[in-house]
């Protein structure tokens, strides 16, 4: 099976879906002539032309709204944000228009569209360019939210997102674009929205996570394995709707849960997971649910401070040992 990058997996998904449905188009900053700020759309302008691969001015609110309008009358826009940090300027369109249009029109205007781009911190980009938005977005009724952590899931979830008749948020990762993984060549790769996957089986503790933190969970699980602790990794893949059964099933086996998330702790999505686990898995739990997250500070620039602020495998290992009562 071919091993490709997360970036190329997304590129394949975009191209396959645009070949499949001529209502689908890609719009955003630098997606065309520049070939994508992160080269996700490389070659697409040449393949599909400038009506379907549309370079925009730096006008996030505006082009997000253009996507909404096009979706209202039957096109299927893919709106690329160069990063989700810039999408903050467009949240009125994402939240007030895309998420609510179906409901406030009494079901008349479904919004089949995708908002996608890199989410979370990269390296030394400091405060304004390093933040994870999933807690904000998963909070909104009417939005589906996916956060693929592997090339396979990136391709499969993006394809499902494009085919879905609802607005879907796709949270990619700058640090994920170069990661590699197996993606089959001659078969359709589609990952249904709302389905978690057990990325690693284990009986001692459940890591519940998504997106880039799947890699951190894998590192932590490797370290724990050396100490004969078997960690299970539940990759939610989709945050809204969340696969509650997958979480419950894992916790019923391990009796211990650690939620790993890239964002801040206050009102973070991990709190939503922890709420579910304490409520629905109470009798299974042998320890309180712990959360590993970014420190509650704006991301600092200095390397050492940035490292200290980020959730990492070391913190995940410590949390796992704590719920196993191996460490304080």
């Amino acid at each position, binding site marked *: 099976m071919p091993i490709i990058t997360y970036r190329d997996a997304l590129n394949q998904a975009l191209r396959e879906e645009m070949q499949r449905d001529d209502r689908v188009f890609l719009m955003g900053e630098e997606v065309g002539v520049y070939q994508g700020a992160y080269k996700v759309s490389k070659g697409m302008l040449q393949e599909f032309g400038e*009506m379907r691969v549309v370079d925009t001015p730096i006008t996030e609110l505006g082009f997000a709204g253009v996507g909404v309008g096009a979706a209202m009358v039957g096109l299927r826009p893919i709106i690329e944000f160069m990063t989700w940090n810039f999408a903050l300027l467009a949240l009125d369109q994402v939240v007030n228009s895309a998420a609510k249009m179906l409901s406030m029109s009494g079901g008349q205007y479904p919004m089949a569209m995708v908002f996608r781009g890199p989410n979370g911190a990269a390296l030394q980009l400091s405060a304004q360019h390093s933040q994870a938005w999933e807690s904000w977005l998963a909070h909104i009724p009417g939005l589906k939210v996916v956060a693929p952590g592997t090339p396979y899931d990136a391709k499969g979830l993006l394809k499902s997102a494009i085919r879905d008749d609802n607005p879907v948020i796709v949270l990619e990762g700058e640090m994920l674009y170069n990661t590699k993984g197996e993606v089959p060549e001659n078969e359709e790769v589609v990952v249904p929205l709302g389905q978690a996957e057990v990325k690693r089986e284990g009986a001692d503790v459940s890591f519940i996570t998504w997106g880039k933190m799947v890699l951190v969970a894998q590192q932590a699980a490797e370290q724990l394995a050396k100490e004969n602790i078997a960690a299970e990794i539940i990759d939610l893949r989709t945050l809204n709707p969340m696969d509650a059964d997958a979480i419950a099933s894992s916790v019923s086996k391990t009796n211990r849960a650690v939620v790993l998330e890239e964002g801040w702790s206050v009102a973070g999505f991990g709190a939503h997971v922890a709420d579910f686990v304490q409520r629905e898995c109470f009798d299974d739990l042998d320890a309180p649910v712990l959360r590993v997250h970014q420190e509650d500070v704006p991301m600092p620039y200095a390397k050492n401070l940035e490292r200290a602020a980020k959730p990492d495998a070391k913190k995940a290992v410590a949390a796992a040992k704590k719920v196993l009562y191996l460490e304080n």
Partner: protein
Amino acid sequence: MPQKKSSEQNGASGSIDAAARGDAALRRDLLREMLLIRRFEERCAEAYAIGKIGGFCHLYIGQEGVGVGAISSLREDDYVIASYREHGQALARGISPRAVMAELFGRVDGCSKGKGGSMHLFDRNVNFLGGHGIVGGHLPIATGVGFAIKYRGGDQVCVCFFGEAAVNNGAFHEALNMAALWKLPVIYLIENNRYGMGTALERASAINDIAERACSYDMPSEVVDGQDVLAVRAATMRALQRARSESIPTLLEVRTYRFMGHSMSDAVSGTYRSKEELEEHMKRDPIVVLRMTMEQEDGWTDADTSKLDEEVKAVVQDAWDFADASPEPPLEALYEDVFVDTTS
């Protein structure tokens, strides 16, 4: 004041003006539509006072010439999108008074099934793409509708109604810049009623002739007398011609005045505008302006007006009765229409 009237210079103005003025039958239809909106809105105020309509409710009284003039110039396959002061445009576009009133009453037979209310009237059957509640929020959406028309190679036009206060908002700039850059068939129609809630235009905009803002986008623009429904029609038709034949967007500054408060919770006059100012503007009631034209040109009489008035009052009463009899949405509807369960 500098104005661009590109089509007026190409010899089309005569035929457009004639089409805009129409004949006696057309003028009667325009008067009827404006009267219907006026009576409808008056009953909305009454319904609001007795609690049948809740929330925010922004009436269109005084501005009827704008919505009726512009929308009467459109084709069925064109698109209309509006702000939250959109009862008038919704009726003018052809959403039934029953469905609009039922929506305002929060009933299941409303045009948005009771989920939208006064600020979110929608009707897919007549390409009415909503009332939108965030100032400026629907302007980029209109640009997107224009983009979709061009994407498909159609010759429809999207008309986007908004108040003059929205021009100070970033969405206005972003939407118009892209529409001009990409040459999209959109008419951005400013309903300049002089006040953004209680803040006068002069206290909010660095330039007061806001049609001049079109210069920033090299976009044709025009200042229009919004109290003259025939003038609004003519200007809209010129913009439609540019949009259909050349895919060029237009900014129309239609000057009008609202005779009521900003919303039902706002006094008609007082803190930010005087009674004298209001009364001065009410002398140019769009219904009266058209009626006077009809009296001069069509032999229209007071008796004709009374008859028409009775007719539309009956329509509004029917809408009220229908809305009042319509049930509240069933509780099962609470979780409906949050997501659709389909894929393509």
